[in-house]
């Protein structure tokens, strides 16, 4: 147990950080919650007033909002799963000492240095039916490419592809660094015992990597909503709402529609949704840490 003196010192050191966090996050959250209970809208015929939970009730009869929930979930689950799988495969390959691997690694991390806005612009050009590279490549193998950004199904796929492309390198890099710390003797022992390369990946690399996969997975889920700029540039939530996530709809409601109260309610809902997804995994993460100690 720590002495109470040490505890007091903790608080002292933490105070400046806590003050900043309070000002920049707690206060805005409280204001957002308060706003969500009002009818504030610059487009309304009536002045703003307190309306209780009416905005929240409205949410559940708003089809556009209801449509955005599954899309948010798809855009969290699918890209993150793909990033983890592809990241693992790439890390396993890059761990091998093959000729030219140094250059390959360098190329491979290139997407990490691009801001999401640039990624969005780049992919938008690639997906353009007449000039885009994607349909050209498809045409080389005899496939007539779809109208990526004006077809609801393909637009969602396009966003997923851009997200996978953008953040797989991060995942792969985390996996790779973790793998490089694995003791070499286990692998040597496996080779002596006659294990094939695939078997040593399956029975040594994968189990050793499991904690890293979990941590990286949690981080990716939390950050999956940083996909906002890509949606903004690539599809702007369209066509017909096919790529509109909950936070994007909140943004549109607030900044385009100027329905501040309603938009606040959407964002509070979004916040709850995110807590619901991340809280259990964070708890699990902490328990894991505890056990390791």
């Amino acid at each position, binding site marked *: 147990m*720590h002495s109470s003196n040490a*505890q007091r010192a*903790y608080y002292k050191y933490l105070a400046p950080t806590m003050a900043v*966090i309070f000002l*920049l*996050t*707690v206060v*805005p*959250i409280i204001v957002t919650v308060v706003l969500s209970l009002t009818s504030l*809208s*610059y*487009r*309304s*015929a*009536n002045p703003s007033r307190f309306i209780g939970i009416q905005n929240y009730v*409205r949410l559940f*009869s*708003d*089809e*556009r909002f209801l449509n955005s929930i599954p899309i948010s979930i798809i855009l969290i689950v699918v890209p993150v799963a793909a990033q983890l799988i592809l990241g693992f495969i790439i890390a396993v390959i890059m761990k091998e000492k093959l000729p030219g691997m140094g250059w390959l690694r360098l190329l491979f991390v290139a997407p990490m240095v691009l801001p999401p*806005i640039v990624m969005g612009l780049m992919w938008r050009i690639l997906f*353009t*039916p*007449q000039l885009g590279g994607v349909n050209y490549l498809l045409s080389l193998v005899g496939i007539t490419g779809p*109208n990526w*950004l*004006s*077809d*609801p199904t393909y637009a969602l796929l396009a966003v997923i592809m851009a997200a996978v492309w953008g953040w797989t390198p991060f995942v792969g890099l985390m996996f790779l660094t973790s793998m490089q710390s694995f003791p070499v003797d286990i692998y040597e022992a496996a080779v002596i015992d006659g294990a094939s390369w695939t078997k040593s990946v399956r029975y040594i690399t994968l189990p050793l990597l499991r904690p890293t996969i979990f941590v990286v997975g949690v981080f990716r889920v*939390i*950050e999956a*909503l*940083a996909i*906002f*700029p890509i949606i*903004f*540039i690539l599809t702007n939530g*369209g*066509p*017909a*709402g096919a790529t509109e996530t909950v*936070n994007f709809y*909140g*943004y549109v409601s607030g*900044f*385009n*529609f*100027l*329905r501040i109260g*309603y938009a606040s309610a959407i*964002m509070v809902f*979004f*916040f709850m949704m*995110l*807590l619901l997804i*991340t809280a259990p995994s*964070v708890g699990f*993460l*902490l328990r894991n840490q*505890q056990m390791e100690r």
Partner: protein
Amino acid sequence: MKYRRLSSLKAIVAFLVFTLLISACSSPASAPASSDAAGDTASDAASGDAAASGGDARQFEGTELNLLYFAMTYTDGLQQLLPEFEEETGIKVNFELLDEQASVQKTQLELASGTGNYDIVGIQSGNMPLYGQNGWVTPVENFYGTPLSDPDALNPDDFIGSTMDALKYDGVQQCLPMFAATTILYYRLDIFEEFGIDGPPATYDDLIEIASQIDTDAIPAIALRGSPPSPAGNVWSFGTFFHGEGAQYFADFPNDMTPTVNSPEAITALENFVELLQNYAPDGVASYVFNDVVTAMQQGNVAMVIDGAPLAGRILNPDESKVIDKLGFAVVPAGAAGQKAAFVAHGLCIAADSPNQEAAYKFLEWATSAETMRQVALASNHLAVTRDSVWEDPDFIAKYDFDYGGGSFLTAYQDSLAVAVPDYFPPFAGWELIGQRMGQAVQEAEIGEKTPEEALNDANEDMIRILQDEGYLQ
């Protein structure tokens, strides 16, 4: 042990919250723009003795004004002339020009939060009720007849009446117009000739008939704005079809605000619109914004477009155009209710929260004066002028009266203005909500997700709810 666990949990939660806020709240649209606006606290030293010094040209010397709008032909030309104004008055003017959607959004946020960062803001007539109702702009009429005002430069009667009316709120002139737009039909004379078609389509049925004849893989028949799903996007293009059939957004605007966008007339209009886009337009037209439409025509990739008459300046820009000598111009086709063209005016306003009201007025007066407008038109591609005297100016006519054998452009433009619908977008503060919902319905039909009838029925239902929420409907 317990204590440590708790504090790290707290730290992680705090981190989560922080990440969430950053990812959720940072709007990429405002990011690149903030540098100009942020640290500005231009002093307004001169305003105190303004009235006393009357017409002194340099009374606002040293004042810095910030203007916020989007890059358009008028701002292009104005920037070229700006050094003269700055030299004459000693006022410095910073232009912050974004893309259209971003500028509208940023303007509204700035004005709503009263930052005072901008002195002059641009406006589209459709937003006049919003700005007026919330008192975001200082009515320009407040300056009429003051010692500050130069009647020769102001000359309000020289403005085209409809453009002035579009920028009034409660009968008071709020802003001054500098851009008057309507839609016309541009068509390729050479392609029409090749297929033996002797003139522009008179009705929407003719339009579809002609489109089906001239459509080829190399040069599709028509391009229209399929996107974004908003008043500035597909609703702008669809509106000529909509009004042409005699459809209305409301039962009796503004007395009875019951939405009527699923009327038989509206459904017919959307069926025609969708038939053209799905069968006779370039691939991916559902994501065509106005720039794509302009480029398609300018580069000779399409046989017809219906879009803003002011865009002729760009479509026929000698440096870029591949269709000079090949275009005909006509008023939009007629529906059951006749020919109905779009109408929008853009103007400049003095922000109500600007600390430099009087200097801002001086700039506004200069920027919209007949002489400035004439020079802008001659120096740039800006032909959407809002002053009668400029329309009649010989140099203006010489520059812009394109005629390649299919009739005069300026005549088609003026004939279109004559049939333009003044309330093309119903003027009330809630319009954007209705317009965006309309855009969504149009897009759903464009991409075949819903039939025109289903799309409009769903939209009508949603609009009732929106209008009730915002207090326009019981």
